[in-house]
């Protein structure tokens, strides 16, 4: 046996950091995904929140720009968690997990690494949109509202990792995960994310998966006010428990889809 020289031994922590570094580089380089997660939310904020004239009009404890800014940050965060969890599951089903199993990266560290990645990917669009917002006239009444809104944007994105995972488990392909991200645009529209809804549309919206997350993230600013379609229209309020029921209900549905997908996989 030849005794070949190997590199010095790495610790588990160093392996984890290097793994996350590679994962970040990989995901950053996948331009289409990066575009949707990092660029699109900020661009839409500029279109809907700044380019329109009402940006400086007050809305709750801030202005309309801030309201749109939070909406777009939510959109970016849910796309990020959907894409990250979905692609992680697809990678594993394609045997990449087995390849990694043969390395010094222990299972628990792999999961930790992927969670760090998902968090990093969810925080990035929120950070970018809020940064762009801060320089283009978005305003909250206090600094605390910046922090609490941004944190809520990331938090409401977390259940959507189950949504991405469900698609990956049910259809086992990267295309299915892209489709899941695509559906988020429709959910975003119905979830009162892009344009203020009213009437029947709003009644439908309450049952769609992005309605609760978006309203909750905007809660520090709106405290439940539904911004009407036309200025001067009657102001409606939404109660917190409707939002929590919406989030809880959809999280349960996503979890059930995951269980179904996982079961289908083992019975094959």
């Amino acid at each position: 046996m030849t005794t070949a020289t190997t590199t010095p031994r790495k610790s588990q922590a160093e392996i984890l950091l290097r793994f996350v570094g590679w994962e970040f580089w990989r995901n950053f380089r996948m331009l289409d995904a990066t575009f949707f997660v990092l660029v699109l939310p900020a661009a839409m904020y500029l279109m809907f929140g700044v380019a329109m004239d009402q940006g400086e009009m007050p809305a709750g404890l801030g202005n309309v720009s801030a309201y749109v800014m939070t909406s777009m940050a939510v959109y970016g965060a849910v796309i990020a968690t959907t894409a990250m969890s979905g692609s992680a599951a697809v990678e594993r089903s394609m045997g990449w997990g087995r390849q990694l199993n043969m390395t010094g990266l222990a299972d628990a560290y792999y999961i930790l690494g992927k969670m760090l990645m998902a968090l990093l990917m969810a925080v990035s669009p929120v950070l970018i949109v809020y940064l762009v917002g801060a320089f283009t006239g978005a305003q909250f009444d206090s600094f605390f509202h910046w922090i609490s809104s941004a944190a809520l944007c990331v938090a409401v994105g977390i259940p959507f990792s189950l949504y991405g995972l469900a698609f990956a488990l049910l259809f086992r392909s990267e295309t299915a995960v892209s489709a899941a991200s695509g559906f988020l645009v429709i959910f975003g529209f119905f979830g009162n994310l892009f344009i203020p809804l009213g009437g029947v549309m709003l009644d439908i919206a309450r049952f769609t998966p992005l309605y609760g997350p978006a309203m909750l993230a905007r809660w520090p600013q709106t405290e439940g006010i539904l911004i009407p379609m036309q200025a001067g229209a009657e102001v409606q309020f939404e109660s917190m428990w409707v939002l929590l029921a919406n989030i809880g209900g959809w999280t349960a549905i996503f979890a059930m889809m995951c269980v179904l997908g996982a079961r289908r996989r083992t019975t094959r």
Partner: protein
Amino acid sequence: MNISAPPPAIAIDAVTKRFGDLTAVKNVSLTIHQGEVVALLGPNGAGKTTLLDMVLGFSEPNRGAIRVFDRAPKRAASEGDIGAVLQDGGLLDDLTVGETIKMIAACHHRHLPIHEVMQRADVTGFATRKVKKCSGGQKQRLRFALALLTNPHLLILDEPTAGLDATARKDFWATMHAEAKRGRTIVFATHYLREADDYADRVVLMRQGQVIADGSVDDMTADLQRTLTAQWISDVDPVAWAVSVGVSRDQITYDHQLQRLQITTPDTDRIAGHLLSAGLIRQLTIVQPGVEEAFFTMTQDSQEVTP
């Protein structure tokens, strides 16, 4: 360190693995010593992959135990003692060949210099190509490079040439041959008997989750039927003569017009010796069944074997 004898590369002790009602591996015991090149041969569904998965620490046996270099398989794998070329998949399409090697290297505790691994697996020529655009043979070279990264003492290859064309297959085995010469223990699963015969010192034949033969291909084919054909040139009755040397009547056919005698038995050498020394025949031929046929016979259920 070398006070006692080196531990076996793989020690499998009475291992059983079940998936629901299906018993994929039934009470298999097998010891593979360091430096051996062993082929795990058997048809699809014989339990080869299930057994190798347990050796690699991907799954646990329901009963029995497996040790790799006297360590738990999972531990041996994470420490880089085992290098594996996994069956298809196991790669990311968005990375290049070089990046894949670097990323997996980043996840190992220690590894060989990247350029050395690339050279040995012969991937330097297409290191900047995306995995998505690689041919089957190139992907297999890449998987091989990943397996070599930690300079492992044990290489496990699960159907390494499945789906490769003849040239790629030949190239792959040439590279493997060089690794065997370095003294690595190599275990490969295959359903090509030819490959097992050409590249392994020892063949372990599996069927329906059990080891049914273990040895060299020559040993395994020794008991198989061969057919002796010759032209009978004596006045003695050929059938009576054959019976007198211990051949049963149903193993003999004699064509009176052509004076052609045919005897089918595992024991053709002894009979040929008698025939020649007594000067009873000429134009002797002995035909051994092809290795593929032999393998086919061995992996059939006994009741299906034609007499």
